[in-house]
């Protein structure tokens, strides 16, 4: 038994952590935290952005910010951003004008659609008050 015990002690590696081990652990933790943070926007988006498309083709993407009002014209359509960051379609060539009547959208996940013209304005990312909505039922 003593002989066996002696052989076992010789085979077991030294378990006491060395200073460099701590460096490795710290590096892995820092890397994990950084990558986790990088993964977060996958389904929650970044800053609020507006994408304008027609027939599935993106015409424009721009950040939506408060205190930055203005109008953007896409052919016969006009997309307006109000002082408070609300986005609306204010002019459209369609007869029904459903897209104009939709009014303003402010939150990620909302959109304004002109079916006859296949013209879509949609918000993505994270709205200012953090509603965190993934999709909208209307």
């Amino acid at each position, binding site marked *: 038994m003593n002989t066996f015990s002696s052989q076992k002690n010789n085979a077991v590696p030294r378990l006491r952590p060395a200073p460099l081990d701590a460096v490795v652990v710290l590096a*892995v933790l820092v890397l994990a935290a950084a990558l986790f943070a990088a993964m977060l926007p996958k*389904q929650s988006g970044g800053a609020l952005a507006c994408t304008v498309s027609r027939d*599935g083709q993106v015409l424009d993407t721009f950040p939506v910010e408060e205190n930055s009002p203005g109008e953007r014209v896409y052919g016969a359509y006009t997309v307006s951003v109000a002082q408070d960051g609300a986005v609306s379609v204010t002019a459209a060539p369609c007869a*029904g004008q459903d897209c104009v009547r939709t009014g303003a959208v402010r939150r990620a996940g909302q959109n304004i659609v002109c*079916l006859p013209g296949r013209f879509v304005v949609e918000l993505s990312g994270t709205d200012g008050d953090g509603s965190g*909505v993934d999709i*909208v039922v*209307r």
Partner: protein
Amino acid sequence: MKRWLVLLLAVCLLCGCAAGPQEASAQIFSMDTVIDITVYGDGAQDVLRDARAELVRLDGALSRHDSGSALAALNRGAGGPVAVEEELYDLLYAAAAYAADTGGCFDISVAPIMDAWNFTGDTPRVPSQAELEALAAHVGSERIVFDGGTVTLPEGMAVDLGGIAKGYASDRLAALFAQRGVTSAKVSLGGNIYVHGTKTDGSLWRVGVEDPNDPGNFLGAVELRDRFAITSGGYQRYFEQDGVTYYHIVDPKTGNVARSGLLSATVICGNGAMGDAFSTALFVMGLDAAVDFWRTYPVEFDMILADDDGHVYLTEGLRDCFDASIAEHEYEYIFLSKE
């Protein structure tokens, strides 16, 4: 040396995780609406391709205005038996059953009345009362005859599946996702929602319920998985004439625009076609009849009803998953119980 190998291995593993799940999304114009689909996970692109193909197929089969569709052929053959394929037969049968269940507040045979109003056309109009009464005489799904593989519409009747087709399409997509092992996906068919599984981080989908008084804001948000959410409301499609607003939802029994005191009716359930039909029916019924219907219907579903007096009624199943804190406007939220 070993510790650096451990570090390298850890970096590789973390990078693999950080790459995240595959994501594939598409925006499709079909079924008279815009459809947004996002699928996450392995094979997402293939599933999305098949989902798109399924929607194109359904659009071709279920459109009343496509002269080559099976539904158009059925309408042309009104007055005699028409052989239809199993899928259309089953959907028509289900629609007729929902019409019976809801006392005719949802009815696919309302099509000629909708044509008279021309809500979706360039020149909507207000039909005369005499015209509506004459057209309403042809409404009534209970008179559709189902016999084996044939369907017989009475002379003068025409059916339109617009009030149920999008819900049925979401059922088909849900089945596709399940068959292909998808664990995370979301679909919006013009605002008819289906959320499949959970988000990729395992959390529930957060579905915003649009505020009918201010469509840029929400009545609240509900957290869901594997559920369909469908709203009927007059607030997005309407026209005005002589100072009167005419919403696009009509009472099939009278042909007149439904003015029930509700601004929107949202159904949350496990069957898209049923939810689509019931959201319309509840809107037409109005608050009291809708609550009675919910209390007695044998299949479980939840609903959110917003009236024109600042009240939002929610069924008890939503008590723990509804968040009203994101509402911009003040409402009185009232939870309904079965008793």
